[in-house]
C-alpha cells in the first residue's frame, strides 16, 4: 500500500513550522552520543515535529544518507550516522489511536514506552514486553526488536507489532504488516532503521490485572543452580531474569521471577521526580575494587532479602531508570556493552568459558545480566533473540584492553555458534555480524539506499 507524499505547505508561522528553508535543515552537534558515550564524532542532526516535515529531510541532497533515531539508548554506533545525517524522531511523539477494549495502540515513532505505559496502565493494559529501560521510543523498540524478561512467554516486541508506517528514501509512504508488504515488515522489525523512517507503530498490548508484581528473589551459588531455576520457572513465571557476579568466576548471582498480582490497583508511574547523575564520574571511579565491593554488597543484600515481595511495575522492570543518565558513572571515556546469545546445547560450556575469561581479565562489570530466551521465533530478519541463553555485560571503556577482551569473548561465542546484539555493539567485526545474522544478505537487498548508520557501514564492509 503506497500513499503519495502530501505537498509541503508553507506557513508564515515559524513557531508552527520549524526552521525556515533558508537555514540548513541539519545542524552539526557535538553532543549527540549513543548510550555508551564512547564515540564522540560530530553528527548532523534535525528534530522535526510533524510528519509533513520528514519528506524534505529525507530527500535533503546535502546528506545522501539519513538515519532516524529515537532516545539513543543503543550503546554503540547503530544510532549514529557521522557519514550522513540524523533525523531525531522524539518530536513526533503523538498518540494516534488507542482502543481500550481490544488493547491496540498506535503512536508516532517518537512516543516513548514511558508515555505509552502511562496511558495504558489505568485501562488495564501493559506493553507486550519491555526492555530494561522505558526510555526508548516505539520506533527504536521496533528497529531493534527489543526483548524483555518475559521473552519465553511473549517473544520479542516485534511479535506484537500489527502494522507500521514507513517513509522510504524515495518519498513514498508504505504501510507494512505481517501480511501486506511482509518482506519489508520482516526487514524493518529489528532492521536498525535502515529500511526507511518508521513514522508510526501499531501494536497489541497485554492485559494486566494490576500494576504490581509478585516478585521472588532467589540467590544462587553456581551456574548449575541458575540453569535449574531458569528451567523450573519457564512454565510458572511470566518474567525471569538473573544478575550474575562477574567479579568472581564461580557463577553466583541473584535470580528473580515474577507474575502480575491479580488485584492491587492500576496506578501509572510519574517521570517528574527522577534524579539524575549530574556530571561524568572520574574514569577511575569504577575499578576492580569498587565493582567487586559493589557486587559483594549487592549479592549479600539480596541474599538477606531472598523472599517474595510485591513491587510496582516501575521498580521491577526499570530499576536503573530511577537514576537518569546513570551511564555518566563510567566517566568521559564511556562504556562498552557486550551482549551475546548462546544456543541450547552449547550453553554450559560457553557460559563457563565466558565467565572464566571475564574474571581472568579483571575488567569490572557490575551490570551483568543472564536470561534464557524461549522458543518463540523472532519476526525480523535481523532479530537478535533466539532459543538459548543471553548474557549482557557492561565494561568501562579502557581502550585496547577492553577491545581485546571482547575479541576473546567473540571467539567463545563463535565456537558456540552464538550471536551478538547490534543494539549493544560498537565494535563487532563484520564476519561476526554475518555469522550472527545468516539472513543478512536478504536484509541487505531490502535496505533503503537512502538510509545508513555508522554500524551498518562498519559491519557490511
Amino acid at each position, binding site marked *: 500500500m503506497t500513499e503519495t507524499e502530501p505537498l509541503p*505547505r508553507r506557513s*508564515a*508561522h*515559524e*513557531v*508552527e*513550522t520549524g526552521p525556515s528553508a533558508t537555514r540548513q535543515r541539519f545542524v552539526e552537534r557535538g553532543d549527540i552520543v549513543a548510550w555508551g558515550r564512547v564515540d564522540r564524532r560530530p553528527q548532523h542532526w*534535525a528534530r522535526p515535529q*510533524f510528519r509533513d516535515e520528514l519528506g524534505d529531510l529525507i530527500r535533503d541532497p546535502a546528506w545522501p544518507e539519513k538515519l532516524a533515531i529515537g532516545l539513543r539508548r543503543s550503546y554503540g554506533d547503530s544510532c549514529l550516522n557521522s557519514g550522513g545525517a540524523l533525523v531525531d524522531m522524539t518530536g513526533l511523539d503523538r498518540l494516534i489511536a488507542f482502543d481500550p477494549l481490544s488493547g491496540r495502540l498506535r503512536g508516532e515513532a517518537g512516543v516513548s514506552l514511558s508515555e505509552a505505559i502511562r496511558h495504558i496502565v489505568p485501562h488495564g493494559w501493559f506493553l507486550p514486553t519491555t526492555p530494561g529501560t522505558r526510555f526508548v521510543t516505539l520506533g527504536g523498540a521496533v528497529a531493534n526488536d527489543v526483548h524483555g524478561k518475559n521473552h519465553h512467554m511473549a517473544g520479542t516486541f516485534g511479535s506484537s507489532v500489527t502494522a507500521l508506517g514507513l517513509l522510504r528514501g524515495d518519498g513514498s509512504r508504505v504501510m507494512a504488516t505481517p501480511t501486506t508488504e511482509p518482506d519489508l515488515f520482516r526487514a524493518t522489525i529489528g532492521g536498525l532503521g535502515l529500511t526507511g523512517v518508521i513514522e508510526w507503530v501499531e501494536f497489541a498490548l497485554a492485559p494486566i490485572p494490576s500494576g504490581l508484581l509478585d516478585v521472588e528473589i532467589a540467590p544462587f551459588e553456581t551456574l548449575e543452580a541458575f540453569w535449574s531455576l531458569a528451567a523450573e520457572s519457564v512454565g510458572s513465571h511470566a518474567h525471569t531474569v538473573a544478575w550474575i557476579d562477574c567479579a568472581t568466576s564461580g557463577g553466583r548471582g541473584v535470580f528473580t521471577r515474577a507474575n502480575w498480582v491479580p488485584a492491587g490497583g492500576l496506578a501509572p508511574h510519574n517521570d517528574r521526580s527522577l534524579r539524575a547523575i549530574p556530571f561524568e564520574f572520574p574514569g577511575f571511579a569504577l575499578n576492580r575494587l569498587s565493582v567487586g565491593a559493589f557486587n559483594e554488597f549487592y549479592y549479600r543484600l539480596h541474599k538477606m532479602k531472598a523472599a517474595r515481595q510485591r513491587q510496582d511495575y516501575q521498580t521491577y522492570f526499570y530499576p536503573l531508570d530511577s537514576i537518569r543518565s546513570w551511564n555518566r558513572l563510567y566517566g568521559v571515556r564511556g562504556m562498552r556493552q557486550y551482549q551475546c546469545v548462546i544456543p541450547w546445547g552449547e550453553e554450559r560450556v560457553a557460559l563457563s568459558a565466558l565467565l572464566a575469561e571475564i574474571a581472568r581479565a579483571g575488567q569490572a562489570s557490575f551490570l551483568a545480566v543472564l536470561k534464557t530466551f524461549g522458543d518463540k521465533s523472532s519476526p525480523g530478519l535481523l532479530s537478535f533473540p533466539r532459543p538459548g541463553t543471553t548474557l549482557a555485560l557492561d565494561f568501562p571503556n579502557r581502550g585496547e584492553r577492553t577491545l581485546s577482551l571482547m575479541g576473546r569473548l567473540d571467539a567463545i561465542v563463535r565456537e558456540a555458534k552464538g550471536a551478538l546484539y547490534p543494539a549493544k555493539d560498537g565494535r563487532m567485526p563484520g564476519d561476526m555480524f554475518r555469522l550472527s545474522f545468516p539472513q543478512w544478505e536478504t536484509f541487505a537487498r531490502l535496505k533503503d539506499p537512502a538510509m545508513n548508520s555508522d554500524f551498518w557501514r562498519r559491519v557490511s564492509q
Partner: protein
Amino acid sequence: MNAAPKRIVILGAASAMAEVAGRLWAAEGARLALVGRNADRLEAIAADLRVRGAAAVEIEVADCASVDATSTLDALAQRLGGLDVVLLAYGVPGDQSQLERDPAATADLLQTNFVSAAAWCLAAADCFERQRSGALVVIGSVAGDRGRASNYVYGASKAGLATLVEGVAHRLAKSGARAVLIKPGFVDTPMTAHIAKKGPLWAQPEALGQTIVKAANKGGPVAYAPFYWRGIMAVIRNVPAPIFHRMNL
C-alpha cells in the same frame, strides 16, 4: 475531574508550547478548540489529545494573523458550549537583519505578533468581562523586557503585547476574569532548533506547559517561565545604558 470540563481555545495550536499545554488540559478532560493554519498538523494533535483524555477537540483551520478575531472566537465558543480559557500561542521571531532592511517585513511581523494578537485579546476580554469569568493566557517573551540589538523588532512586538495584556488584566480585575502574560526565557522548541549549544538556562517545552496551565487557574498578571527569568531580566533591565551598549546581546 468532578468539575465541568474546561472549554479552551488555543490560537497557534501547533506550536510546541501550546501542544504541551493542550496535553495537560486533555488529561483533565477539557474540551479544546485548536486554531492554526495546517490542517494535517491540527488533525495529528487532535487525535493525540483525544487519546490523552480530552472530552472533545474541535479544529479551526485559519490564519490567526488575518482572520476576524471577534466572530471566530464567538463561533468557537459556541462549538465548545462556552469559553473558560483562551491561550494565545502564535508568533514569529523574524530575522532581525532582514527586518532592519525591509519595512514591509517589519510591518508583517508587527501585524502577526501585535496587531492581530491585540484583536484576539480584546475579543477575549469582551467575552470574559460579559460572563464575569475566564482566563486569557498570552505567550510573550523576555525579549520584550529590554530592546537589544539582536532582536528588538520581535522584542518590541512582545513589549507592546505585554502592555496590552497588562491593561486587559487591569480592566478585567473588577469582573473576576483574568489575563496573564507568560514570559518564557530560552525554550528548546523548533523556533530555536538552529541554536546548537543548549546550556543550563534552556527549558523544555514540558516545563512551560505546566506554567501555562497553572497561570490559567490562578496567579498574577505576569509569569516568567521558568520563574528565575524574573531575576535575570531584573538584572538585564537595570544594567546602565553605558555598560549595556558595550555588551553584545
